């Protein structure tokens, strides 16, 4: 027991020592769920990290750790980062929620920022983007473009963020194409190109000619590229290497302004725990160039939806909407509140699949 106390004391001393050295520079840590070269989600977070470096130059030092598994391992990585003197740590995946909260409790002086989660503390902020706004644009294009009326959707984990995306895409596809049907595969991974490619192939074989993905790699687009007439969308990043087809447009996550603002707050000593949820209006969600593979009129409509959402004139979840079990959700003209959206655990009417637990 004594030896353990001694070890802990030494570890603390080293931690404080590190913090003392780093005091002139603000140290910003990033924990990534995939490799920074995934071409999607993690790539864009890393772009944000680089933007922080470019903005503050010598005043900050950034560190990052890639491919950190969600769960207990994340806690170890976070503890290590905090011990090494990080002042601000961004944890960039939903599954880091509990590890972030746990580690934050142990390091009250370190600020934490958790992406896409809903648990906050005095030194833990949350931030996310309204990806469902981009999904509305994609859903419109999908509904207009599909010839087989089957849209394949590669989902990652059954969490509210993913379910929101499926619902938003479905609502807008259905609006322009009443016959549209969604086939959904749960991959249970954020990043596993082999599995994502297999899932895309299975969907294409079952007649899907539009593939949507909520996983981070470009593998589904690579699978779509092999089959004539199948289109897909860039996810989290532009994925322009697959343009003009199969990638017809994309949702681009732009984290840079947020990361810069939060780092600045730490430097100035004005950092507070907040909950940020921005969308197209602030540019956190960007829509990649819509290519010529999409007919001009569809493109114009899609851009109109984007502009209406950006200007706050239109909300993707506007009634009348029913839940999949037939119960009423939103009345005519009613708009979904953020609380329901943040905890969304149901499909809207029309999606026949079931959400796995």
């Amino acid at each position, binding site marked *: 027991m004594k030896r353990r106390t001694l070890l802990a004391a030494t570890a603390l001393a080293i931690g404080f020592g590190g913090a003392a050295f780093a005091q002139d520079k603000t140290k910003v840590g990033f924990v990534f769920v995939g*490799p920074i070269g995934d071409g999607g989600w993690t790539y864009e977070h890393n772009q944000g990290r680089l933007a922080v470096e470019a903005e503050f130059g010598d005043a900050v030092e950034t560190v990052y750790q890639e491919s950190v598994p969600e769960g207990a391992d994340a806690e170890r990585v976070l503890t290590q980062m905090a011990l090494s003197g990080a002042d601000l740590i961004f944890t960039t995946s939903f599954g880091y929620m509990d590890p972030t909260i746990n580690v934050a409790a142990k390091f009250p002086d370190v600020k934490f920022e958790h992406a896409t989660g809903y648990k906050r503390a005095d030194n833990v902020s949350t931030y996310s983007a309204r990806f469902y706004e981009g999904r509305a644009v994609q859903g419109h294009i999908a509904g207009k473009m599909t010839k087989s009326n089957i849209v394949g959707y590669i989902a990652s984990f059954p969490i509210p963020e993913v379910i929101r995306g499926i619902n938003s895409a479905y609502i807008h596809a259905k609006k322009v194409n009443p016959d549209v049907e969604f086939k959904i595969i749960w991959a249970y991974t954020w990043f596993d190109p082999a599995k994502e490619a297999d899932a895309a192939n*299975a969907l294409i074989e*079952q007649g899907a000619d539009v593939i949507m993905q909520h996983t981070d*790699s*470009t593998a589904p687009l*690579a699978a779509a590229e092999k089959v004539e007439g199948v289109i897909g969308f860039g996810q989290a990043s532009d994925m322009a*290497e697959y343009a003009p087809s199969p990638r017809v447009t994309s949702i681009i996550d732009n984290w840079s302004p947020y990361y810069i603002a939060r780092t600045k707050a730490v430097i100035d000593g004005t950092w507070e725990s907040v909950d940020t949820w921005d969308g197209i209006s602030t540019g956190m969600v960007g829509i990649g160039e819509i290519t010529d593979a999409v007919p001009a009129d569809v493109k114009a409509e899609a851009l109109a939806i984007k502009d209406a959402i950006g200007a706050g004139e239109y909300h993707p979840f506007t009634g009348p909407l029913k839940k999949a079990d037939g119960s009423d959700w939103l009345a005519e003209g009613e708009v979904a509140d953020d609380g329901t959206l943040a905890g969304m655990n149901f499909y809207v009417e029309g999606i026949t699949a079931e959400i796995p637990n």
Partner: protein
Amino acid sequence: MDLSAINPLVLMASIMVAATPILLAAIGELVVEKAGVLNLGVEGMMITGAICGFAIAVETGSPTIGFLAAMAGGAILSLVFGFLTQVLMSNQVATGLALTLFGLGLSALMGQSYVGVKPPATDKLDLGPLADIPVLGRVLFQHDLVVYLSLALVLVVWAVLKYSRAGLILRAVGENHDAAHALGYKVIRIRLMAIAFGGACAGLGGAYLSLVRVPQWTEGMTAGAGWIALAIVVFASWKPGRALLGAYLFGGVTVLQLNLQAAGVAVPVEYLSMSPYLITILVLVIMSADRSRAALNAPASLGRIFHASN
């Protein structure tokens, strides 16, 4: 639920593609084990082949050269194992496990700058009118060269092992290396050649993953395929024909799992995800329940160290 959405012909065709990497690795390992060597490093050789093939294909722009490089990469890595176990006489199980871990690490290092890179496309073999035959054409004649190569390899391995003198010598070395040695056969040399063949096959299987099936490079992308290949060799009781059956069965479960999900079958995803591995365990249990028969088929010198002086 709508099972009619699954087209059995298309499903068959994609099972063939999904099974090709494990089939290649399994047929290579089968030859190695027939020569009396147990190489548990299949996973490591596959993943090394995957990155060697991917890197070379990207650099040269030719998938064919990539596939050749993958075979070379797998063979070179397997010869490390060969040198350790055959010349230095280390324990085969421990060395094989080490080879897997080494291969996984080495490939991750080699692949650092290839994450997210798009490889050159591998063309499908144009078989002209054959591809238009109803039913058969869709299933059999619309693949790329490697799929046919893997099938041909099964046939060749079967014929060589069964009918040729070389096959007889290989089997003799695997059944009783002392007797083979007494007859004047170079046991170590023959085993090294078998090990290299196994490595090349595993490497090719890995490259098929990274260049055709996915096609992309990521760390650990073989995701246990090498272990399944090892299980298939036992499942097949060291018979090439059965290895083919085993590989298609395992590849089939993986593909079917996703297809059932897309068709909206209300089976919990977790069960489907674990099904290939569950079947592996089941098969191994059934096999080992009948000990005498399983032992009858296994090469008698499998995993034993050969030393010429005793």
